[in-house]
């Protein structure tokens, strides 16, 4: 009983934190890239992801990353695709990689921390997830 409570309480807390962290996110963003090829690929990624073709969406993102390897948003999109695929470790690493290129873009970084938080809770690391969600709030 105690053990169950010990497990569920932080889980509930995390979920609460996660929900308030996720809801107000993503204000309309400026153009993802000034390169029309990257924009075209991102359109493709979004329609592939919407159709549930996550593997293909990942492949399209890799194509985009070959064109703009330092575009933090592309790394983030790839992190999100991996998160949706349930590949949590990859999601976490890719979001961290995105942070490396995000420099002053606080919105982007906050979103990366949210992805890291979700990826960590997906792996059962609730404490780590909480830390990540708190980082997201501070960005």
């Amino acid at each position, binding site marked *: 009983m105690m053990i169950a409570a010990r497990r569920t309480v932080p889980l509930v807390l995390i979920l609460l934190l996660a929900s308030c962290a996720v809801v107000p996110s993503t204000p309309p963003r400026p153009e993802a890239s000034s390169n029309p090829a990257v924009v075209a690929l991102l359109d493709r990624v979004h329609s592939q992801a919407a159709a549930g073709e996550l593997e*293909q969406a990942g492949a399209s993102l*890799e194509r985009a990353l070959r064109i703009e390897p330092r575009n933090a948003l592309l790394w983030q999109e790839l992190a999100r695709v991996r998160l949706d695929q349930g590949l949590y470790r990859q999601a976490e690493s890719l979001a961290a990689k995105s942070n490396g290129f995000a420099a002053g873009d606080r919105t982007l970084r906050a979103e990366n921390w949210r992805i890291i938080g979700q990826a960590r809770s997906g792996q059962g690391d609730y404490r780590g997830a909480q830390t990540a969600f708190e980082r997201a709030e501070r960005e």
Partner: protein
Amino acid sequence: MKLYKFLRFGKKARRKKTTSNRRRLTKRKFLLAASLAVLLLAAMYIIYLDFTVRTRFEGRRFALPARVYARPLELYPGLKLKPAELVAELELLGYREAAASREPGSYRWRNQLVELVSRPFTYGDGAQEATSLRVTFGSDRVKALQRRADNSAIELLRLDPALIGGIYPGNNEDRVLVRRDEVPQLLVDALIAVEDVRFYAHRGIDPRGIARALVMTVSGKSVQGGSTLTQQLVKNFFLSAERTVRRKLNEMIMALLLEVHYSKEEILETYLNEVYLGQDGNRAIHGFGLASSFFFDKPLMQIDLAEAALLVGMLKGPAYYSPRRHPQRAQERRNLVLGEMAEAGFITDQQLLAGRITPLGVVERPPRGTSPYPAFLSLVHRQLRRDYRDEDLRSEGLQVFTTLDPWVQRSAESALGKQLQRLEQGRGIAADSLQGALLVTDTQNGEVQALVGGRDPRFEGFNRALDAHRPIGSLIKPVVFLTALQQPQSYTLATLLDDSPLLLQQPGTDDWQPQNYDKEFHGQVPLRMALARSYNVSTARLGLQLGVPSVLDNLRRLGVDHELPGYAASLLGADAFSPLEVAQIYQTLAGGGFRTPLRAIREVLTFDGLPLQRYPLAVEQVVDAPSSYLLVTALQDVVRQGTAQGLHRYLPAELGIAGKTGTTDDFRDSWFAGFSGDRLGVVWVGRDDNQPAGLTGASGAMTVWAEMMAGLALEPLILPVPDGIERVWIDPQSGLRSVAGCPDAVELPFVAGSAPAESAPCGPGFKGNSLKNWFERIFR
């Protein structure tokens, strides 16, 4: 039915002679039985022939090698590319230059404008249709892509990828199997014009052809044998010198049978891959694909009219018409083929005239292998073997999409060849005694863009990039310094290291007394200078302070996956690694502390183009961002003011290249590993017999690296500054805090809070400071 009538006719003839009804009856029965037996035997024989020829045909047709492709070139506005580079890529793909490019696979180049019609191709994520477009170039980039039909803009276009090799059935049998749709139509035209004009009309044998051949032979102007292509194919299946009527008859029956079972295109495709075209020692050259590589050193797709005619001409007698041994004869025969083609209406008179005066185009010496990139291919093969059975690779016709960038590969091959020769000539080193290997990868996604396994890039044997394990010398030092920088409270770039004599005595081992390259000791040296100048003694002492195991742990984290013994000498690079392993270590440094497994394959599709497996980009953070940042800054100093300063003779300083030289005892191994913003290169130079090569990392490997990278448009290395990094002015002599304007003061990055607090004489705490500095200090 006909046979039955014949029997009845036979009966009538005999009735007159015989008198006994009984005898007649017995004889009739006997004849009937005998005929049936003959019939049965004939049927069985035909079934047997059918089985034999089909087995042979299927065996040839379905052993499809895995086909290996280079990366496709993606065209988009803003791409760094010159018109000549695009044209080189199109040539590699076998596109033809045409006055007005209309067909897929053709192009036209005028100054800053290239018009082309791309070939259709199916990738794992869908089809790219044939597109007719105009590519306009700016100074060093693609300015615009437009559809020629309506001038509309194209954002992105993926060309078809170059075929770079195959994984073939059998151990020693090398073939270059081609698919019907990859065979130039001109070749098929030539073949039909000369060997079998009625190929598409007959059913395996061609009575008219036989008759004509007979007439022609008698009249003495024969260019035609009577056999159809189908018969020739059958003949090739059962090669024997025997020339009997029975054999000819078998051939005809089998030809008829083949035509019943298979389409003309299937038969033609098998013929093209099967037919005998020459001899190379004890190796038989079968098929036009291999012949094209053997005679012209290029893929069949790229041969022109005269070359197609030459190959077809050789069918009549590959030895007699060998263009290498009997060029005159071969040329006459080729021109005869061209004449036949013109007569059959396949080519115009103009083409005929132009073809006749074209040189043979045969390369002097046949290339050694069938792939231009055997070293890269062996890496691909190794990575595939982890996931597939070898027989599937050799027979299922898988399509393998790799990361090879032919442009980078070309630059790498030529740099290694040229530079080794230059080094030998310039330094009085015996000719051809030096060897080398190198890899180029993408810094962010770990794709291997080029791999050279030795001086002769076509050599299919020992692949030094994968299999030469050599001590890496100072290439290990960044790992030692990284281990230190990960403890910011103890070590910073400004920390003074002790470079005075060191003697390590351990029970059971020899005394260890590392020396510096210049045989001097340098007293107190700033950490970043110890790395930049590659001081051994201070590095060894630092490594011993940190502990050999913790340095080796870091090495494993960076990507080395084999056991390391862990001696003190490991700290100075006594352990041996292959260039591939070194590339994996530096990949992690170049990737900002994220380990990305090196990949040579993007995806594998089935024969029918269905996705089978993807090898996705994977990253894992193994070094924290601030430590990684500090280390790479220090590696930039190696180039800016350390052992790799010479790089500036080849490359502009603004690229901010980070790198490290490595030299081993007695100059046996010369290494350089370095990266720009987009590419990482690792080069090894040395001798196969492990004798001294007489080169340092900077005088040997680094010059190859520089020569190679100078041929590629590199992106500068601009490091994003991670959180928690501050910049502080330092007095390098004392390692203490200083201010801008003090003599020798340098501004260095520190993990926040790790910079020295104490001030150097000219620094912020010094009495003679200005009032402004005093205020700055108060309000810091």
